[in-house]
Structures are given as C-alpha cells and as structure tokens.
C-alpha cells in the first residue's frame, strides 16, 4: 500500500486525538466544553498530497547507528544465547565495572530498553520528579 506521509500523519494524530476525548467525556463543566477543540489536530501538512520529504520539525538528521552488534547474543541460535550472555556479562563487567551504566550499555547496547528496532511501544516506568517542589 502506498500512502503519503501527510495522510499517515493525519491518521496517526487523529487516532491520538480521539483518545484525549475520553477525558472531556467525564470531566464535564463549561470550562472544558468551551475549550474542547484544543485537542483537535490542525493538519498543516498539505492534506492527502504526496509528500516524500521529512516533516518540518526541529529534528536534526542523524545517521543510522546500529548498536545491535553490542547485544549480539540475541542473534545466536536460542540454545547458545544463555551462555553467550553470561560470557558477555563477565567481559562487560570486567571492562566497565559490575553494574555500571557503561557495563549495561556494553551488555545490552547503548539504546537498550528492549528495542534495537523502531519504536518501543510499551510504556516505560514513570520517572521520579527531579525537581525540588514546594
């Protein structure tokens, strides 16, 4: 299926906007009703026109960095994965210090939270607050 980036973006943001409406459905009240268009997507991408260019964002271009080689054990036959990981952990701990962040990156790859592919879908653990709050 060939589908333009603009249409993909439109469909994606429409789907995301639809879930926000769940909040207004239960909050109620004049204030929310008066402002309930704020979650509506404003599509400035040119509608359904073909658009092969990256969207206009502040994202800077970066090259592909495939860190999967660092977590290479997952590419082995299943019966060899355990022993490979154990050996790799020994090596990484010895080189970077057991449990250190560098050792974890050595073991899992620098981008590891499970994914060396595209998008981590599952929600991560929420962060703790880093700020002094009053």
């Amino acid at each position, binding site marked *: 299926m060939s589908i333009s980036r603009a249409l993909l973006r439109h469909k*994606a943001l429409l789907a995301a906007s639809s879930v926000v409406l769940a*909040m207004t459905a239960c909050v109620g009240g004049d204030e929310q009703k008066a402002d309930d268009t704020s979650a509506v997507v404003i599509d400035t991408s040119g509608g359904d026109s073909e658009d092969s260019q990256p969207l206009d964002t502040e994202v800077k271009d970066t090259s592909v960095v495939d860190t999967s080689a660092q977590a290479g054990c997952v590419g082995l036959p299943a019966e060899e994965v355990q022993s490979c990981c154990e050996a790799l952990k020994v090596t990484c701990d010895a080189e970077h210090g057991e449990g250190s962040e560098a050792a974890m990156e050595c073991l899992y790859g620098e981008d590891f939270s499970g994914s060396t592919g*595209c998008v981590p879908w*599952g929600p991560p653990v929420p962060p703790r607050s880093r700020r002094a709050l009053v």
Partner: protein
Amino acid sequence: MHTTYEDASAPAAAPILLDLRREAQARRPDLSALPPLSDAERQVAVRTWRGRMVNEHISAQVWAGLVPSLMRAGAPPAALAELPTAIADELRHAEQCAGVVLALGGVPVAPLPALEPVPLHEEVAPLEGAVRNLISVGCMSETIAVSIIRAEHAELDDGPLATLLGEILADEVSHARFGWRTLGLLMPRLDAAARARTSRYLVDAFAHQVHHEVPRLPRFDALRPELGQAGVCDGGFARSLFLDTIQSVIVPGLTQAGLDAQAAWAEAEAETRHVFQR
C-alpha cells in the same frame, strides 16, 4: 515462558532472559505472502519485533504498578478494574510480537533489562502521585503509541500482520483512553498547589519520553516498502510523529486538564535538544 529468575543474593547474576519460543509457536502468523527481504532487512525486522516483544512484556509490570498507586489515591473501583485487562493485553502483545519474530526466522529470546518499580512519589500526596503516573503512562506513553502504531498500521497491506497490528492498536487505544479518562476523574480533586507541582512534574515526564523514545528511532533514510510491509517503520518519520503527537495532542490535552503543559514542554524540549542530534 521459560524465564531464568534472578537470585538477589547472587553476587553476579546472569542476565535474565525472556524466552517466548513456546508462546511464539502458538501465535505465529503466516507471513509467507510478505515481499522478499534481504538477509539484512530481515534482521532489521526481527530486531524490531523482538524489541517490541521485550518492551510489551515488561510494560505489564508498569500497569501492575499502577494498582497500588491508584488504590492509595482512592481511585474508583471501575478504574482499578481496568488495570488487570491492560496487564494481560501487554503480555499477549509480547507473545504476538514473539510470533512475528519466529515467523520472520528469528528466535524470540532476549535479555530483559532491569525492572524498576513504579514510583509512588511519596514526597507528595497519594492522589498527586497517582496523577503523575497516569500522565506518564496513559496520557503520554500510550497516546504516543497509538499515534505511531496507527501510522504503521496504515502503511500495511491487508494480511496477517495488519490484522495483528490492528488488534494491538485497539488495545493501546483502550489503554490511552483509560489514562485520559481517569485523569479527568482525578484532576478536579487536586488543589491549586498540587496542580502547580504536577505542571512542574510534566517537565520531567516529557523529558523522560524523549529519552525513552527518540534514541530508539533509527533513521532508515531509504526504507524500502517491502521492509515496511514487515512492520518496520521509518525512524525519521516516527521521530517527527512523536514530536507532532506531543505538540498537537498531548500538550493541548494536558492544558485542557488544567496543567501548564506548554511551558513544561518548552522546558523539556530545551533540556533534551541534544538527544535529537545524536
């Protein structure tokens, strides 16, 4: 599932492996109609789906962690009752992703990262802490997931993978709606000071999303449509969609909830600008 559980008393425990080979057999879709992929492309697809397998699996514990957080906050039973469904959904998604890994010729085994507990934010009242977690999980992570998966789904031709992604998308929509709906229930119970603190927390929550998502969105400058049909998305497009979803959907939604989301996003964006340039 065959998981090697860590013994906390062991000085140098081996990595914990998530092994979904058995579950994958039962969930394996028929991908025989996929267009031909090179070996390198097939490996990219396998890594993508295996990464999703891990992330979906471990996200079950995030939803489980919302139970005590929301219960301490006095959330209504109807809301609490939705959490076990979300947990089961995420575990099933992991199995479905494992099935795709297997169908692509990969092995659905991967090391698990360390699992952190869901914070109770004990420096603030339970209600405020629960709102923080809801925002991070339901209103941010799951809403972004809806956007990204919707785009991926729209790119797929009809077939087993589109069916599978459609099922996952429907669940993620349900999870995100839960987040926003429950936020709508709890926000009126926060006083002005708590709302102000929650607005400040948004800076951390937005920055966390950037750190979690953006480095794992590799750019495939010339992604062949065939690879897209295997469920691999263009990381560059996903990055732009990630930003669009925050700016066009999440910030307005949180503003509508009574939080100063625009200022928080501006601060988080400035803090994390370097992440996009890596």
